[in-house]
């Protein structure tokens, strides 16, 4: 496994390099996974191979507290995750603007990086995700705590086993144990938060991929209305698990997105000194 120390945390990452000879100038796609069960595998085993075959260098990594990355007891503010993403780019000597693909909380991290370091971001593909606004913080705080408490409930576990099988019961128990051993529930919604004025300054192009009855089903057009360069794709009959359940459709959308934006990103990005 490829490991590096990021802000003091031993971090698992994986490259899948572009097929063919790109002379080191292949577009770079950085995938950021979500919370809980998630790990770099949700991208590595779905999108990474087709994107690399199409000519992109694809980087995935496990967030702190997830996958094969270490699980510190504290340090789970959104700001910590944003700092980690920037440090991953710095340590891998990635200075060209990258295309971020963020799933759920991973998208929130991506928006955070774009707000703080716009020169590092060529575009964002946001899968069932939103920036860290006051509204997000409220929802995140309530939802994460409710989900965490439910995960430990025997009746919930019984339902998971009957509905999804024993594999998901094991995943739930593992996630519950990992979450309970850290301060992630208390910290993750603490920001930094972005206000409407800041969102209006995010100049990178954004593709928002949403499930028709996912986490933004109450207002599927809200994110697009909040950002100056955002387009929305809604997948019908789909809940929050867009990436895992519809990864081949997501692949099509991202490939089209990269074909549309990659030359734009390379032409308009500031050259490194």
């Amino acid at each position, binding site marked *: 496994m490829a490991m590096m120390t990021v802000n003091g945390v031993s971090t698992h990452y994986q490259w899948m390099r572009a097929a063919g000879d790109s002379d080191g100038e292949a577009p770079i796609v950085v995938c950021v996974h979500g919370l809980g069960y998630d790990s770099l595998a949700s991208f590595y085993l779905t999108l990474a191979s087709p994107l690399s075959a199409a000519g992109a260098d694809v980087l995935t990594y496990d967030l702190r507290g997830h996958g094969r990355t270490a699980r510190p007891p504290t340090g789970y503010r959104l700001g910590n995750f944003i700092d980690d993403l920037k440090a991953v780019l710095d340590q891998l000597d990635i200075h060209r603007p990258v295309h971020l693909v963020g799933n759920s909380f991973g998208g929130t991290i991506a928006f955070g990086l774009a707000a703080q370091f716009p020169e590092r971001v060529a575009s964002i593909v946001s899968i069932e995700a939103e920036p860290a606004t006051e509204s997000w913080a409220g929802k995140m705080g309530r939802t994460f705590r409710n989900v965490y408490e439910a995960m430990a409930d025997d009746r919930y576990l019984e339902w998971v086993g009957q509905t999804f099988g024993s594999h998901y019961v094991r*995943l739930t128990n593992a996630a519950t144990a990992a979450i309970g051993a850290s301060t992630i529930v208390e910290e993750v919604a603490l920001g930094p938060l972005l206000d409407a004025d800041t969102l209006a300054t995010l100049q990178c192009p954004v593709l928002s991929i949403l499930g028709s009855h996912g986490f933004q089903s109450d207002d599927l057009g809200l994110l697009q209305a909040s950002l100056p360069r955002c387009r929305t794709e809604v997948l019908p009959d789909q809940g929050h698990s867009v990436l895992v359940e519809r990864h081949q459709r997501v692949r099509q959308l991202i490939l089209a997105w990269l074909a549309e934006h990659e030359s734009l990103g390379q032409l308009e990005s500031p050259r490194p000194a």
Partner: protein
Amino acid sequence: MTMSLPTEASGYDETFDEVCRILCRVLEVELDDLEIEPESVLTDDLGLESIDLVAIGAMLADRYGPQVNLAAYLAELSIDDVIVLRVGNLVELVLSSGVAAERAVT
């Protein structure tokens, strides 16, 4: 999700043994401590998680070369198919690339 089996039956056994060794390395157990059959489901029977598939893919590529591309294979499956993936599917992935037969004669 089935793949055509090669004609070299002995290649299957050798490849199965090698896949088992890789699985035991990932699970950090001794080969004798785990009962593995071609029909063993990676998740339910062996307790493997999706993150483990990343390591398995890397080990298969190290052993057999980049032609054995587990990530590319899984990218064409649904999540339901990945959850019921069996040891035999990994063996067939290796054999369908032709590398095991090549190594058997070199």
